[in-house]
């Protein structure tokens, strides 16, 4: 599978620049991203470092035209974080697609060559496939959140409130209220 090998070489040569911009733009989606961008300590700065290294891994996989399954790990590393932050679904996954834009900006001159322009189509298709897998993972993360909620309700951890004494369950009004709360 060597659908964009010439382009891949150029991607390798420009790797640092592309990654810098891609990371910068992705971390720029946070309100106060200074620390996320600056600190390279993986334990003091999990969001910044995990996203940075996740994007780097994804870029290398694209550059090497890796099998789709290989993308899951690093995609998950990025999207599991964004899935619980204050983003809409599209804002959470848009960084993956944004790579197309970054590459076109950085390789503006090179892409004037016909051969590379053709290969760019293939590359972009790979990016989109990656983003779609990212979206699946996003959905899985959200489902996990709801499973967590149900699990807590079932396990009795949630019985801090409105539970306790069994006589409560005989209380029709309380039950009604509970149902309404669940629907909320």
């Amino acid at each position: 599978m060597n659908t964009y090998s010439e382009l891949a070489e150029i991607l390798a040569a420009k790797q640092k620049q592309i990654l810098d911009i891609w990371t910068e733009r992705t971390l720029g989606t946070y309100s106060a991203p200074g620390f996320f961008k600056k600190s390279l300590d993986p334990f003091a700065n999990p969001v910044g470092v995990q996203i940075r290294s996740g994007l780097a891994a994804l870029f290398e996989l694209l550059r090497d035209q890796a099998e789709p399954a290989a993308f899951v790990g690093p995609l998950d590393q990025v999207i599991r974080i964004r899935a619980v932050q204050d983003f809409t679904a599209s804002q959470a996954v848009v960084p993956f697609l944004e790579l197309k834009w970054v590459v076109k900006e950085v390789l503006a001159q090179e892409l004037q060559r016909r051969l590379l322009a053709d290969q760019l189509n293939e590359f972009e298709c790979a990016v989109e496939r990656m983003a779609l897998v990212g979206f699946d993972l996003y959905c899985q993360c959200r489902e996990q959140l709801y499973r967590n909620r149900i699990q807590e309700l079932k396990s009795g951890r949630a019985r801090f409130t409105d539970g306790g004494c069994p006589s409560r369950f005989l209380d029709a009004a309380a039950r009604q209220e509970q149902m309404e709360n669940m629907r909320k």
Partner: protein
Amino acid sequence: MAVIKVDKLAVSVAKGPSLMTGAYPNKPWDEVPAVFKPGNYAYPTKADKLEYLNSQQGVSFPNAREWSPEDDDWKLPENWKEIILQGLADRLDRFRSLKIFMDCCVRCGACADKCHFFLGTGDPKNMPVLRAELLRSVYRNDFTLAGKILGKLAGGREMTVGVLKEWFMYAYQCTECRRCSVFCPYGIDTAEITMMLRELLHLVGIGINWAMEPVANSNRTGNHMGLTPQAFKGNVDFLCDDVENLTGVRVNPTFNRKGAEVLFITPSADVFAEPGIFTCMGYLLLFEAIGLDYTWSTYASEGGNFGLFTSNEMMKKLNGKMYAEAKRLGVKWILGGECGHMWRVIHQYMDTMNGPTDFLEVPKSPITGTVFDNAKSTKMVHISEFTADLIKNGKIKFDKSRNAHVLPTFHDSCNPARAMGLLDEPRYILDHVVDKWYEMPENTIRERTFCCGSGTALNTDEIMELRMRSGLPRANAVKYVHEKHGVNTLSCVCAIDRATLSTLMSYWVPEVEVAGLSELVGNALVIEGEQRQDLTEGLRTLV
């Protein structure tokens, strides 16, 4: 070719069209209003709970009503602003620490990137310095000369409904974990500022149900769950049956027994919810093994004190109940189970609120003779101190192979670690009950431990996303030791942690389970006359 500047491109000076332009924040922090939407706020207190609490002696919780943070109108009392400013004036008068914290911050920023809420959200108002600024700006405006004259120029802000809403948002995105205070050169404790914000909000009827209903229950029946004395005893009896099935040892704890030497108090979650019940089985076995003369109380049936997350008066009242019960039963001292914030209340506030406890004796282990001088004023000993002392004096025997199924790491819970300095005893116990265990990275343990993200009554399910993002720094360190060493168990000494870390793990590191330290003690404990089955999962084994 022109060199493309990273920072320029980051703020979208795109030549071609980009999908991402709408994703960037574009306003300074003080111009971003707090917007409440499902998932980012905990449900407000139910009117009947608040009414009940307001009817109780010694506390005041006015303005019970149905309301929603999503509504524009929060149904505040007409003179709400006056109430808040007067409330602030009172507290500046009463708490010298508050006044100092308001005045002495130099905005050095050392605390800014230390809060797990900031680290999980990137929201500047979750930097401790800005969280405090939400209150400090009002303080400047109305209580300092510069602020009165210069207003905004001196960093003052007028108290408005918008500011009040911001307070509610960010006072409940702080778990009062005190990690930030470890890094502040002036020792400013943002947790105490959050406590003040929450108190002020209660003056006008703003609070969350997950804090207030357990408080109401504790006040009424003695524990968060509202378990009646019969139900509480029934739950412990069930656990005794389980212990017997698993180990062949019959334990017969007593309840409300006058004249017992020791009163044992633990979070009620230990007697009814997984995985706390396994920890509770550990206590029961340990006390049986050493023949401790102790009693449970069905009135002081809660170690937790959600009053700490509510108001000073409420905290005092709930704490007082434990000591009143110790006095009534005539015990010599109190042994406390694996709880987090109970220990903060005991170590930092108990003495001035409800002390002196001169009706109790300085705790002395009846087994080893060790006198716990460190507990001279509170008369209350932590189960880990007590267990570590038993081990040190060779009074209990372990078979580590019974813990072969666990490869633990240890999570320092915020309060035992930072509010009472309980750092080495749990580690000493781990050394003796398992073959091997691993520390998480240095800047995430001991005094610098990361919070579970769900403390201070934020352990409710409607804010699951918020909890998952604020728990990320903790989970991230667990993930590291899981991947590097194969760690499969996160051990800890806090009931809220046991519940919330379980949920946190299922999102971030599902291969890791959570266990109380006393569960691991119970697993490995060798007791005379026992007939243990082959327990491949210790006390969790289904037989």
